[in-house]
Structure formats: C-alpha cells, structure tokens
C-alpha cells in the first residue's frame, strides 16, 4: 500500500512536468499541424540553459526561469519566422524532415558544447534530498516543479479561453482558413503558437534539470513521453495533454515500482500503442477513429 501511494505521488509529481512538455507539443500540433520532432530538444535547451546560468551566474534554477522564459519566447518566434514558416501548410514529409533535422542539429551542438556526459546542477540539494510526509517521501524539486507545471497550465488555459489571442488561436486550431477569412492573422498566430510551445518546453527543461541529469540524448526521452501524453489526450487537445502527462507519469512509476525500473518506459510505450489501437483519437474525445 505504501509502495502504491509512493508510486502514485511520485508519478503525479513527475507527470506534471511531462504534462508541460506535452502541452507545448500539442499546442504546436494543434495550431500548425506540425508534429514537432525537435520538441524534445527545446526541453534540452531549457535544461542546458539553466545549467549554464546556475554554474556561470550561480542563479537558483527556479529564478533562472526569469531569463529562460523571454529567451525561449524569442527563440520560438525566430524559429517560426525564419525556418518553420517555410514548411507550415506544405506536406507532412517536409515538416517531419525539417523538425527532425533541427532536433539532430541541436543534439549535435549540445554534444559539442556540453560533452556527451551526464550533467546535473552541482551542489543543488532540492533534487536529491528526501522530505518525509507520513509514510511517503517527496523531493522538494519534484514539488516545486509540479507547482510550476500547474501554474503554467492554468495560465495557458486562461490565455486560450479568456483572451482574444486565445480565441484566435483556438479558431486557427479548428479551421485555419475559416479563421483567416474572419480576420485572424494566422501567420502571426503561428509565430505566437511556436513561441509559447518552445517556451513551455524550456520551462519544463529548467524544472527537469533540478532532478534529472542533462545529456545530449535526454531530449528524445521527453519527446517520446510527450508523444504518449499527447496521443492519450488526442492530438491537438492542449489542456488535455496535461492530464495525459499525469497519466504517463503514473504509468511510468507503477511499472517501475511493480515490474522493473529498467522497463518503466516499456510500460509507457505499451500504453501508447494500446491507446492508439483502441482509441486513436484519444481518451477524451467523442469522435470515432479517423
């Protein structure tokens, strides 16, 4: 029972951050119909960016977010403006090639700049020390990360439902041409969508580095987890992707606790394929399989 509660709590706390990564992926897919294979590498940029700020300027990683967030917004907008705009609304093939290519380039750059070894924040205890809460243990970094994830999710949900920008974005998600003809400047929406998507990924990266060591391949791990969460929620269901992330975290922790730590990702992937087979439009959708 304690094992169960422990796995559930850890799964939820980790799942919140997975949810962040997944929301960014889902937003970009929803707005632009681009499956962004470079999304994991944006998480990686957040991780290494925070690492650099921590080692260089001795900034607390959660304070470093104040620099990471605007930087990431700029990066996302620039990428969309310069590169990705040239393939949005073309073929699936070109979008996949471009984002996959970007992901490999960022990975290689990380390898060159930060070496292939695993790097974590030296001397930062929040990620390793355990705090006892009754029969279970939690890590402070997990808790802070989860709180940040919930705040960002809430903010994004408010942005999407309560502001004109959000309404324009949702209109673009539903039907880009229709939105355009009703006066939405879709190209501007694409830039904003990409900026927010990259920004959320970098926030997740900044949180992750406090308890998960960065390595050039780490982005891939989170990309795959985000795929799982996004498919669980249904492609393009942005806030649902957060719930998908929570489920992914739970599944991973339960597999790790009750089957084997090495197989935790296999449990996750099995869930992914099962959902695709049984409910290809996601758990929260009422539509039938496409």
């Amino acid at each position, binding site marked *: 029972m304690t094992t169960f509660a422990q796995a559930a709590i850890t799964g939820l706390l980790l799942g919140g951050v997975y949810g962040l990564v997944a929301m960014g992926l889902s937003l970009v897919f929803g707005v632009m*119909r681009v*499956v962004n294979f470079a999304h994991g590498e944006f998480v990686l940029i957040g991780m290494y960016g925070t690492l650099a700020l921590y080692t260089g300027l001795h900034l607390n990683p959660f304070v470093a977010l104040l620099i990471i967030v605007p930087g990431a917004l700029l990066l996302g907008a620039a990428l969309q403006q310069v*590169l990705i705009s*040239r*393939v949005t609304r*073309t*073929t*699936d*093939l*070109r*979008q*996949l*090639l*471009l984002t*996959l*290519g*970007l*992901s*490999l*380039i960022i*990975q*290689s*750059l990380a*390898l*060159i700049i930060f070496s*292939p070894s695993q790097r974590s924040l030296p001397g930062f205890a929040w990620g390793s020390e355990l705090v006892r809460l009754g029969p279970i243990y939690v890590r402070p970094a997990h808790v802070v990360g989860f709180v940040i994830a919930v705040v960002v999710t809430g903010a994004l949900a408010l942005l999407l439902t309560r502001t004109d920008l959000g309404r324009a974005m949702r209109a673009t998600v539903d039907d880009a041409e229709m939105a355009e003809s009703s006066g939405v400047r879709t190209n501007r929406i694409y830039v904003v969508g990409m900026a927010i998507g990259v920004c959320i990924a970098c926030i997740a990266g900044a949180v992750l580095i406090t308890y998960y060591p960065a390595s050039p391949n780490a982005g*891939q791990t989170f990309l*795959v987890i985000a*795929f*799982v969460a996004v*498919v669980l929620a249904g*492609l393009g269901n942005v806030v649902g992707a957060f719930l998908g992330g929570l489920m992914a975290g739970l599944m991973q922790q339960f597999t790790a606790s009750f089957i*084997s730590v*090495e*197989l935790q*990702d*296999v449990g996750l*992937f*099995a869930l*992914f*394929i099962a959902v*695709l*087979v049984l409910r*290809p439009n996601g758990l929260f959708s009422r539509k039938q*399989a*496409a």
Partner: protein
Amino acid sequence: MIRTIGKLAGPLFFVFAATVPLWLLQNDYLRGIGVRALIVAVLAVSWNIIGGFGGRLSFGHAAFFGIGAYTSSLLLVDHGISPWIGGVVGMLVAAVVALLVGLPTLRLRGIFFTLVTFVFTLILLTLARYFSGLTGGDVGLSLPLTEPSLGMMQFRGQLAYYYLALAVLAVYVVIAAVVSASSFGYRLRAIRDDEEVAEALGVPTTKVKLQGFMLSAGMAAFAGTLAAQQDLFIDPGSAFGVTRSVEIALGAIFGGIGTVWGPVVGGIALVAMSDGLNNVLQDVFAGADTIVYGIALVAVALWLPGGLASLPRRLGLLGRRRHAPTPPEASMASSTEKEHELR
C-alpha cells in the same frame, strides 16, 4: 532514345560499382565504408517500398534492421546456423512483426503510423538492453570467427562483403523496379495519392499497405544480417538506434522518395558525406555524421523535397517530361490537404 539509355543505365551502374574497389576504394578501410554505403542503400530501397511508393513514412525502420541482425546472429551464436538461413528467418520474423505493428496502425492517418514506428523501435531498443542474457545488453554480441566461406557469410577483408552487398542491392533494385511497374505498385501509389479514391476504385487499401510494409520490413531485415556479418558484432544502439532509423529514411528521401534509383543514390551519397566529414573533423569533435544528417534533413525539407532525383528536372536538364509517375512531393501534398479536410 532516352528510354533506351534509361534501360541501360541500371546494368551500367552495377558494372561501374563493381569496378570501384579496383581504382577508388583500394584499401580495406575504404572498402569497409563502401560496404556501409551499399548497406544503407539496400535499406533505403527497402524503406522506399512503403515510405516512397506507399507514402507511409516509417521513422522506425531500424526495428527491422535490428530484428534481422539479432535473429541471424543469435541463431549463429547459439546454434551454429548459417547466416544465410538465419537471414531468411530474420526476414520472416520482421515481416510478421510488421504485420502485427501495421494491422492496428495502417488504417489510421499517416502521422500515427510515423509515431508508432518511431516509438516501437524505442521499445525494442529498451528490451534489447534489458534482456542482456540473450543479447549481451549494451556490451553487445560478438559473432564467432569461423573459416572464411560463402556458406557462413564470413570473409577476411572487405572486398567479398562489398560484392555481396552489391549483389543484394542489385536484387533489391530489381524487386523495386518490378514492384514499381506492377499493379501492386500502382495500387500503393494510388493509396499514397488519394486513399479514398483508391478505396472507391476497389483497392483493398489496408491489405495493400500491409503487404507493402511486410515486404519493406523483410527486405530491411536482411541488411541487418549483412551488417552483423560485416562487423561480426551487434549491439542494441547500432541495431535499434534512432540514428539508424533516420539514416534509412533519409537515404531514400535524400535520393528521391518514390523513385527506383533515388534511394540507391541517396543512401550512397549520405554515407559518403557523413564518413567524409567524420574523417575531416574527427580531431575537432565526434559525431559529425549526426550533424550532417541534420543539415541534410533541413536542406531537403527547405529546398529539395523531391530529393536528388528531382534535380535534373528542376535544373531543366530534361526538356521533355519522360514517362514518369506523379512526382511524390506533389501527390503527398494532396493527401495532406485531404487529411486536413477530414479532421
């Protein structure tokens, strides 16, 4: 006239390739790279059956490469069975796995197939690392040295591997050409161009896609056996790694997706480029091949979605359009638009 040259170009390419070790790849190191290039070409031709003709992009063909490599290697290590038999068994296993993966996913929109192939290969990677008793885990699996013989697919020196890979490539190009010209090939392309119309015309779309995927997977598996025999070694990363999947798809796409010869040219060009750069930059940093793949992907996406095969037409070298199937880049656009509508 042009068509006669076109018919002769195929055999001429293989005659030319057969002479390359005599004047260009003159030592074992270079010949080893040559073998690698041919194996990637073999894989690209295999990928192209479902990815190019069928328009279903697999980002996980390393799964079948790895299945082929591990099947023949394990049969050789544990039971002393010749890799020729092991390779054929590997092809069958890969085809069955393709059936199981394709059955639920090939009826969905194309992007789901891409995601599942990507994730499925990562599952195999994790499993291959976990069951280290069987596969040797990350340490890898070394194949036993035997007397060099064709029967055991083991030779000293790279020259024999070179001709073996070249022979396999020739067989695969013939298969691709036959598929391309057959009614099966036309059905695959019809599905790629417009699945609903194909269905309405009586093409059993899911069945045809499954057949294409199984054929593609089986063909890729034998390349795994070849690579394992060349290195006499196999490990999870090189068998099921993402880079391997990217290499396979990129070879075909870089050369010319959906054409018979594009994947051959693309696969060879890709390895030549990445190995060349790895050599030049090995003192500066490791892993230059990955960044080359990345840049090649971005370049193809931005400027050359038809691959190298579309260059002559783009540069206006072919005045008249030859009897050619629809350029895949154009047709894939239409299928995406349709998917967009369907949502």
